């Protein structure tokens, strides 16, 4: 079966996110001071062949741990959906 993995990788909350900080500051400049605490990460998608959704989930998580995320500075969230035939 084919699955689609959608992964969000975000800088850890405890760490300064300079990109997010710069964008937060710009919100004031565009007249949207209500928006604050912008944090910027990465969104990664890929297709994965697996026997089950849980197998796809564990393979995607392995990809995150080994390559896609650096757990010292980032965390990840994986969503798996079955793809139509």
């Amino acid at each position, binding site marked *: 079966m084919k699955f689609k993995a959608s992964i969000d990788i975000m800088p850890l909350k405890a*760490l*300064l996110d*300079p*990109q997010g*900080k*710069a964008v937060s500051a710009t919100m004031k400049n565009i007249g949207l001071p209500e928006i604050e605490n912008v944090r910027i990460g990465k969104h990664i998608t890929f297709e994965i062949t697996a026997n089950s959704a849980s197998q796809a989930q564990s393979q995607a998580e392995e990809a995150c741990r080994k*390559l*896609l995320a*650096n757990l*010292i*500075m980032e965390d990840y969230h994986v969503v798996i959906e079955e793809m139509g035939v």
Partner: protein
Amino acid sequence: MKFGVVVFPGSNCDQDMVDVLENMKARHKNEVVKLWHKDHDLQGCDFIILPGGFSYGDYLRSGAIARFSPIMQQVSEFADKGGFVLGVCNGFQILCEANLLPGTLLHNNTRKFICKNVYIKAVSDEFLISSKLNTHKALKIPIAHGEGKFFAPDEAMREIYQYNQIVFKYCDEKAVVTFDANPNGSLDCIAGISNRRKNVFGMMPHPERAADTLLGNTDGLLIFESIFNSIEIFN
């Protein structure tokens, strides 16, 4: 003494590094070769250097893809056996990603790419790469990075201090470590570290860019002289 400078796609300080080591040949009888990242052979080198640059375009994270280059398997095994490895700038980032050094390098606090001379001081002269340095004297060495803010979680930092792994700190001209002299927000002003065994080293500043009288600054040469000095003592 044979040095191997690894060339990744996107390395751009490899030739500077080779030039410095070539220039030292007359005095130290050393050899230097370039090692292509797709090779599996360290060609009998005694000292491996991962140079600066933008390996794999810094895609995903700096160093994250380069650490899986074929030659890195051999570099890891070499380091595990006690072989000497130095990573400068992107090389430091690769060594952290490869778990050969603790911690990681985050985006600079300012979000800017910083390219300028800074001052660093050796925390101790007991490292292979600092044996000829005066710990009360600042070295002027350029940095050129967007992601050079050293960070490690609390537990890793405790170990870094417990095993005396800090090699260089950012400081002012008088060798005083102050946060004002810290260009990128590095934790505790850290500019360079070693592994626990003290055979693997990483530093963000570029000593190879400050090792030629033509460039008007030879402070970096002292780091290379330290390497030769230490090896001669070991032998």
